[in-house]
């Protein structure tokens, strides 16, 4: 039996939240076909109608027909579908997966019936994932369960969208990009992780709840009606259609809320338990109120914000829709209710725990490579706390302390928490956040408020962003610095300033370019051996100097960014023309005022497209190895290195061994032939040790990369910028990359995040790692990302907590943008890998998100186990 140290902080939620969380643990990811059915049915009825109107009517039809479901004990209600962890495909975005997988899915449904119903409840590994078909349920891509009687309607709907989906239309036109063949090759070789426009066209942004809170739904409908009268017949006719479409969409949301209210009333009539009966009545009253009017109480406001969060998630395929600074948005209602004696802090805490479970239920049905390979099934609802007010004072408040406490007592992956670190925040607030870190869930992550403001001013200043406005920022998705704005909320005769998101989706544009893979192709004259493709035009250079090699690398990278930008712009254009955003557009300033949706630059700020990369540390370590071993000390030649890489340095491949961690690799009979070369590669200077040799290479790369992104333009005619987060891409991208010049072996994962050291190579302690990480200006990029794994004993007790806070401050003060912690004993993780049934509720921090251990793929599990574990700080 393995002995390990458990995490120090371990609290239990309220009884109600415990019951609801247990429901969640027991629930599987489930597909419902209701929404896509009603959407497609209405869409097809309106052939010939103006697209945005057609879209609005289809959304209204779908919302109006969703079957309401309210679970016993819930206080916060509503969901994406009629299942707890429900989601649905959107064939209007992409139908190709289903068409291609049709035969396989039908075969699965036939075979599934042969397994007994008993097997249905025995999925130990995989958590809530439906990892295999069983009984009447077909597994889709090892994650989602679909009732087999709904498979024919799924295929019927998919067929109706063939040739008409955003994917199909986008694909048709992106082929007109002159370098399209290069793009295809880049995608096949997994130099780029996935397309942008039809996979996750929205998300990685901060929602804005202000308009429904301020005006209520009837008020918003009336605004639309007034605007229609104002603009009908005038030039800029698109505004008329936008307002009409928005009105229609809002009517659909109203119907949806009222259906839930009706359900709550029905349940109150059949309920025998008096307490539960009264709770259903209260739920009905709250829903009836918010279906029309602006909320007046904390509970109404919480329900309103959650309802609109769901509504946005239902209109598109979205991951990373962040609630933003929800604690600051809801604070006026909290304060008002407390003063009037309408609520207690205990009740608020219970509601916040319920809120955590509702956000955790959210699921996203995106294309398979996205859900598994990138997102690890996470939906990235990031709640930001702290930061500054408009006037520059600390924005931390008492409600945010309760949010932290609920994150401690009711630990769940969602919403993840981000603390916008500023020197002005109270010390007690920061220490509360450290207490939360010690639970081991990996939140809150810490983000540097001043670095973010600097980044925002550099990139949005030309759109009118000021310092005061920049202070309203929050984190979108896992780590996307996103601009916000301040709104004047009126409640009970008083006016409050609340923040809200003010820009559309980011992390759209170029999704994850694999840097080590491009380096591999530089070494092999543009050729990818795995797919047997000449991806880039052969450079035919002998690579006689480091500068020459690096120059070719940059050339290949720039060519990749260019063609991917152009192709993804076309996809996004198809998206905005075929499936314009309506719910999110209504919410985002200044779409309602302008009468333009997000796709037509209705938002206040629009410089949101970016260039994401992965594997930066492996690139830099490899460049350092090449420079030292080949060009300076001439220890071996390029050809000798290429042979060593071809032989995987004398080791079996990761896919043979089934382990993707660098530490578990198995030598083969040829290992002695390559041991010298590999040792030289491993001994070359490594990032993370405050060594000028390799850090100067890192700084040069960052300076070039951050600057060159601005040379490319989005569909909004705005420049792109750098974005450096790995999410989970370091696993699938590592899986298709040969061994690298830094000594990494074929198929193993890259270093996680963007400034985390490669496992085992950071040998000079955390402050040396910080010095390396901060060798470049983090405000030149939308983010940087640093994961640190610390043994629980290293931060135990009050002293340990203070040390961890000092460590965090140390990094922030050096200019680091982000740091997050896994407080965990690696031995526990190994035990969890061997005995997953005993660890259903274990959570870890991956890279910008927290996820249940049992729902992570083995690649990522291996990588987290392998990360350097600090025993003290």
């Amino acid at each position, binding site marked *: 039996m393995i002995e390990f140290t458990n995490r120090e902080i371990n609290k239990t939620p309220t009884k109600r939240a415990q019951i609801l969380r247990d429901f969640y643990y027991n629930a*599987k990811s489930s597909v419902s076909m*209701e929404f896509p059915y009603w959407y497609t*049915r209405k869409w097809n009825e309106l052939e010939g109608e103006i697209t945005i109107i057609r879209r609005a009517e289809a959304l209204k039809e779908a919302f109006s027909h969703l079957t309401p*479901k309210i679970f016993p004990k819930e206080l916060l209600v509503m969901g994406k579908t009629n299942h*707890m962890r429900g989601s649905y495909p959107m064939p209007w975005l992409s139908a190709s997966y289903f068409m291609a997988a049709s035969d396989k899915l039908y075969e699965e449904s036939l075979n599934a019936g042969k397994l007994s119903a008993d097997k*249905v409840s025995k999925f130990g590994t995989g958590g809530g994932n*439906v990892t295999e078909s069983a009984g009447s*349920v077909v597994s889709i891509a090892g994650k989602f369960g679909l009732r087999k*009687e709904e498979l024919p309607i799924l295929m019927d709907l998919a067929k109706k969208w063939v040739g008409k989906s955003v994917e199909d239309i986008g694909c048709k036109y992106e082929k007109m990009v002159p370098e399209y063949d290069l793009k295809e090759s880049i995608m096949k070789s997994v130099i780029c992780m996935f397309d942008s426009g039809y996979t996750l066209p929205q998300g990685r942004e901060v929602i804005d709840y202000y308009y429904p809170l301020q005006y209520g739904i009837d008020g918003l409908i009336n605004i639309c009606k007034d605007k229609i009268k104002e603009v009908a017949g005038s030039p800029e006719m698109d505004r008329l259609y936008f307002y009409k479409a928005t009105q229609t969409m809002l009517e659909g949301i109203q119907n949806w809320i009222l259906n839930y209210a009706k359900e709550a009333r029905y349940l109150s009539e059949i309920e025998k338990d008096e307490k539960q009966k009264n709770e259903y009545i209260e739920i009905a009253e709250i829903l009836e109120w918010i279906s029309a009017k602006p909320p007046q109480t904390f509970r109404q406001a919480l329900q309103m914000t959650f309802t609109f969060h769901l509504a946005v998630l239902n209109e598109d395929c979205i991951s990373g829709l962040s609630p933003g600074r929800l604690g600051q948005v809801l604070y006026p209602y909290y304060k008002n209710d407390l003063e009037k004696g309408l609520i207690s802090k205990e009740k608020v805490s219970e509601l916040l725990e319920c809120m955590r479970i509702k956000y955790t239920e959210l699921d996203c049905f995106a294309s398979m490579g996205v859900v598994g390979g990138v997102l690890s099934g996470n939906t990235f609802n990031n709640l930001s706390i702290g930061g500054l007010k408009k006037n520059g004072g600390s924005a931390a408040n008492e409600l945010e302390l309760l949010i932290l406490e609920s994150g401690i007592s009711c630990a769940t992956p969602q919403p993840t928490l981000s603390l916008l670190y500023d020197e002005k925040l109270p010390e007690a607030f920061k220490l509360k956040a450290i207490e939360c870190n010690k639970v081991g869930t990996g939140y809150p992550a810490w983000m540097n408020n001043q670095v973010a403001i600097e980044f925002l001013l550099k990139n949005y200043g030309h759109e009118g962003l000021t310092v005061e406005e920049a202070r309203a920022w929050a984190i979108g998705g896992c780590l996307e610095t996103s601009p916000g704005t301040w709104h004047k909320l009126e409640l009970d005769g008083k006016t409050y300033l609340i923040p809200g998101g003010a820009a559309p989706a980011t992390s759209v544009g170029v999704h994850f370019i694999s840097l080590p893979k491009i380096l591999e192709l530089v070494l092999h004259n543009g050729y990818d051996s795995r797919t047997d493709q000449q991806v880039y035009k052969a450079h035919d250079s002998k690579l006689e100097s480091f500068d020459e090699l690096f120059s070719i690398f940059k050339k290949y990278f720039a060519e990749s960014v260019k063609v991917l930008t152009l192709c993804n712009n076309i996809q996004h254009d198809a998206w905005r023309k075929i499936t314009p955003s309506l719910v999110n557009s209504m919410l985002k300033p200044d779409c309602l005022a302008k009468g333009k949706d997000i796709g037509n630059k209705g938002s206040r700020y629009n410089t949101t497209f970016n260039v994401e990369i992965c594997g930066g540390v492996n690139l830099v370590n490899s460049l350092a190895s090449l420079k030292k071993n080949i060009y300076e000390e001439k220890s071996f030649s390029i050809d000798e290195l290429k042979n060593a890489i071809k032989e995987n340095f004398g080791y079996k491949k990761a896919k043979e061994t089934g382990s993707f961690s660098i530490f578990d690799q198995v030598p083969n009979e040829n290992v002695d032939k390559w041991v010298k070369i590999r040792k030289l590669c491993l001994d070359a200077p490594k990032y993370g040790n405050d060594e000028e040799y390799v850090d100067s290479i890192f700084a040069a790369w960052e300076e070039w990369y951050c600057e060159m992104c601005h040379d490319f333009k989005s569909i909004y005619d705005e420049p792109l910028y750098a974005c450096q987060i790995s999410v989970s891409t370091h696993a699938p991208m590592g899986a298709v990359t040969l061994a690298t010049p830094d000594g990494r072996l074929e198929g193993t994962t890259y270093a996680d995040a963007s400034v985390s050291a490669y496992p085992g190579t950071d040998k000079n302690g955390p402050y040396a790692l910080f010095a390396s990480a901060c060798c470049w200006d983090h405000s030149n990029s939308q983010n940087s990302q640093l994961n640190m794994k610390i043994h629980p004993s290293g931060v135990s007790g009050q002293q340990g907590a203070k040390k961890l806070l000092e460590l965090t401050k140390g990094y922030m003060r050096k200019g680091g943008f982000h740091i997050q912690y896994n407080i965990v004993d690696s031995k526990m993780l190994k035990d969890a890998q061997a005995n997953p049934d005993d660890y259903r509720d274990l959570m870890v921090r991956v890279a910008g998100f927290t996820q249940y251990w049992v729902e992570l793929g083995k690649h990522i599990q291996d990588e987290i186990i392998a990360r350097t574990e600090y025993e003290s700080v």
Partner: protein
Amino acid sequence: MNTKHKDCLNYLSLDVFKGFCRNNDNANVLADEASCNDFKKTLTCRICAHYTYTDEFLGLCKDKQTAYPDLNAKTCEMFEQKENQ
């Protein structure tokens, strides 16, 4: 009577495999197991007068629109229960 829990009005689905029974507070009811004597039919296209089958799991609504027998009709304004259903 060949009815399942998933077809019962008292059944609240947790996921595609199982759910709750509101009638007896049972939190672990398998969707495909036979229903009990307190079975009450849930409203679906299957029992709607406007629904006709074209296949085992597909059909038409009002002879025009594709529909499917298990589509929940609780929120459908066009629903009319078939006689003898």
